């Protein structure tokens, strides 16, 4: 049974093992805050929650300081042909999004 246990973060930090399903969004009652909204996912990593949010949101921008994670997320977005998602390598302190504004910002394990 000694196998990896879930979605381990890119950094290799084992404490980054995250819930495998959408329990976070269910418990947050995500519909109210994400459906047909423009959403900013801060600390998106490889997009674990972003994909779930994108199913109901108008648009999602995922940001993360790890450029490798962002490259993986971008690749996955192309593979899945998800059109309402965009990823950007930037920090929470300097999002670098100019005048772009969002309805909801989610700090995903990142504050």
């Amino acid at each position, binding site marked *: *049974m000694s196998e990896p*246990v879930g979605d381990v973060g890119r950094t290799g930090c*084992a*404490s980054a093992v995250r819930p495998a399903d959408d329990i976070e969004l269910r418990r*947050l009652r995500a519909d109210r805050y994400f459906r047909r909204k423009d959403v900013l996912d801060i600390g998106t990593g490889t997009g674990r929650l972003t994909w779930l949010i994108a199913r109901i949101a108008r648009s999602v921008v995922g940001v993360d300081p790890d450029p490798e994670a962002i490259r993986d997320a971008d690749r996955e977005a192309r593979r899945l042909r998800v059109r309402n998602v965009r990823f950007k390598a930037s920090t*929470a302190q300097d999002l670098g999004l100019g005048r772009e*504004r*969002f309805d*909801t*910002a989610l700090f995903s394990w990142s504050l």
Partner: protein
Amino acid sequence: MVDALHEAHRAVRPGGTLIDLRPDSDHPPRVVRGGRTVGGLYERRDAIVDNHFSDRAVAGAVREGLLKPLRSGHFWYSLPPMDLPALDGWLAESCRIGGYTRGTHAALARDPGRPIIVRRALGYGIYRRL
């Protein structure tokens, strides 16, 4: 953390929502086997301190009138079952969790092959952007 909150506040439209979701240091992980809690895990001191800094940063943003609290709480989720060697390996690499609470490892070592489930708490706060 304070800078990140100010930046997020700038990025969200007035009346929008800011959600803070992260591990909850007030509810340390539990170790469950056979449906029964047999022990726990403790978080590293720096992880707890970081969490408190974040709490203070959010409280400061509320005091500044940037955010209005709407709802907060915590919930538990389970990691997939693993055996004791897998759990030992996970803890050895963990940035956040320091190890077993007293007596936990001894209890687990009596039957190391039996599936173990770690239950962790996530805290959340939902705020209106003012």
